[in-house]
């Protein structure tokens, strides 16, 4: 971080992102918003009207792209909490400039996660039956079901993430309430809740933040393990793996970090002013994480295959055969390995870390690769269950593909709206990063 940046400059730079809006922004936002609606919500409405029959799901393959997207977005959500919570606890300085962006990703990713749960349901209008609430029917929810675990885990995760995100924004919002005018001022004043920036408030803020971080840390691990238990608690070959919890968590973090990298790179291109705050140093740090996670992931993937082979049961062998050779999508396995194991290794070269390849190409590969990982696990395992008579293939239909793509557009448009309302870089933390102005060296 360039220590010569003044506080004033930082404040103006970051609030400039919020307030200075060009026509290109509106054009892209409109495009994304319209695509989001027409690719995500219109097909979904059609699906609700016509039934799940419009998807490519069938008798043994009951879980397809929607579940893939569900896990995928849970994964994307993970980096945000990891960066803000774990790195907060360890007082890692470089988290400050990127934490807010990552948390925002978490928030919208979780929104999509919830959406995908409802999209994949047969009768989404009855979604509230999955929540435990008292009713005249006297019936609650079954707590042995991993889906109920999901409801609680993701409910907790979403709540905590929202709390953490908005809680962290209060000082910035308060400061913005002084520098802006019009509706923004009203909004910020309301949302700042009486933040004044006194020493007592800062003190309590730091303590509360530490508690939040401490609570959210285990959630990072627990949420994705719970999601992995949706699969691992069954007996389906390819699902019933003890390795799934760490495998999913690692994968989630990997995809999350890649998502953060890509998000930062795009933001930097869109708002060059951010380059001052997110520098090659940040890429350097984050990419190290990506390399480590990628290597752990590669190991776990290897173990997933090897344990299957080693089990040497017909079920496991046939499942692997299908996944690696027979399935109409088997070629994607090679692409997955290339994207997740090979591409991130390029980060070993320091020069590449903040080059164009490092900033854009590799993260895109990892994001695609991690999606493929889920795609190769979810429907493929169901294609080779216990009774060979019921072995069938799955191919997604246009509705599923469109909803999958629509989710990305929707995510981007939500994100674009967000950065125009709230500071995407935490102002006070950046200031902290610049250094507290002391007359004499401390």
């Amino acid at each position, binding site marked *: 971080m360039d220590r010569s940046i003044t506080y004033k400059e930082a404040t103006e730079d970051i609030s400039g992102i919020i307030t200075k809006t060009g026509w290109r922004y509106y054009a892209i936002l409109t495009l994304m918003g319209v695509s989001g609606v027409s690719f995500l919500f219109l097909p979904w409405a059609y699906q609700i009207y016509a039934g799940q029959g419009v998807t490519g799901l069938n008798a043994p393959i009951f879980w397809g792209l929607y579940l893939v997207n569900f896990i995928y977005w849970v994964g994307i959500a993970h980096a945000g909490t990891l960066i803000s919570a774990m790195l907060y606890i360890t007082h890692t300085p470089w988290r400050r400039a990127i934490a807010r962006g990552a948390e925002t990703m978490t928030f919208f990713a979780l929104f999509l996660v919830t959406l995908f749960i409802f999209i994949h349901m047969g009768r989404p209008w009855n979604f509230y039956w999955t929540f435990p609430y008292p009713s005249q029917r006297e019936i609650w929810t079954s707590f042995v079901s991993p889906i109920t675990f999901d409801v609680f885990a993701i409910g907790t995760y979403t709540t905590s993430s929202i709390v953490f995100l908005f809680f962290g924004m209060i000082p910035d919002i308060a400061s913005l309430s002084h520098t802006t005018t019009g509706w923004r001022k009203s909004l910020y004043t309301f949302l700042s809740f009486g933040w004044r920036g006194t020493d007592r408030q800062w003190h309590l803020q730091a303590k509360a933040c530490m508690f939040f971080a401490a609570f959210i840390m285990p959630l990072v691990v627990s949420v994705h393990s719970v999601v992995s238990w949706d699969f691992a608690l069954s007996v389906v070959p390819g699902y019933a793996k003890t390795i799934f919890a760490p495998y999913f968590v690692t994968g989630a973090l990997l995809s999350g970090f890649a998502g953060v990298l890509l998000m930062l790179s795009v933001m930097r291109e869109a708002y060059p002013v951010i380059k001052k705050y997110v520098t090659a140093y940040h890429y350097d740090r984050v990419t190290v994480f990506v390399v480590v996670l990628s290597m752990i992931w590669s190991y776990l993937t290897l173990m997933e295959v090897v344990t299957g082979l080693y089990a040497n049961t017909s079920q496991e062998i046939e499942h692997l055969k299908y996944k690696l050779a027979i399935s109409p999508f088997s070629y994607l396995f090679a692409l997955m390995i290339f994207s997740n194991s090979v591409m991130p290794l390029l980060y070993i070269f320091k020069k590449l870390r903040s080059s164009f390849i490092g900033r854009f190409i590799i993260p895109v590969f990892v994001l695609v690769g991690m999606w493929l990982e889920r795609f190769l696990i979810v429907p493929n395992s169901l294609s080779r269950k216990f009774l060979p008579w019921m072995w069938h293939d799955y191919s997604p239909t246009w509705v599923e593909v469109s909803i999958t793509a629509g989710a990305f557009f929707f995510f981007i448009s939500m994100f674009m709206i967000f950065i125009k309302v709230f500071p995407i870089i935490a102002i006070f933390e950046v200031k902290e990063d610049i250094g507290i102005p*002391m*007359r004499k060296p401390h």
Partner: protein
Amino acid sequence: MDNSILGKFQYVDDLLAAAETCKQSGYAISIISPVPLVHEIEHTFGEGKNPIKYFTGVGAVTGLLFGILFTIITSLLYVLPRAGRPIIAIPPTLLISYETTILFGVLFTLLGFIVLALVPYFKESEYDVEIAIDAFGLRVHGVGEDKFSDIEKVMRENGSSDVKRIEKK
């Protein structure tokens, strides 16, 4: 009647020096800053109290108990056996109560923060545009009419650029 003085500083060292002087004179002070000065203040004045941990603790315990009881009691309200498992199944209870512990812990912490740190300041409005950006403020509370110039002097001596008086009815 709370008459107070707000002095703005460019540098934290100056501010802390002024604050120390004022505090030694027996005034209640508060430091207003755009960035957290937790570490620096602690360095100067020693560690402050942290009442939020009680909220967190109560929240976590409540969450744990809620998780356990809720899971067990709702399964007993309409007994429907599943998959040969006991009606009161322990692993899910642990898992659900784990999640509710976190959920309640987070919510109670937030509540604590709101109650302790936000609500008391609702009516104060001395937060200043400059302080919001790059100035550090030192506010000295309960300054009598007569002592005003003394405090102002202390601040000016320590490098304050701007000192103003705030009166409240």
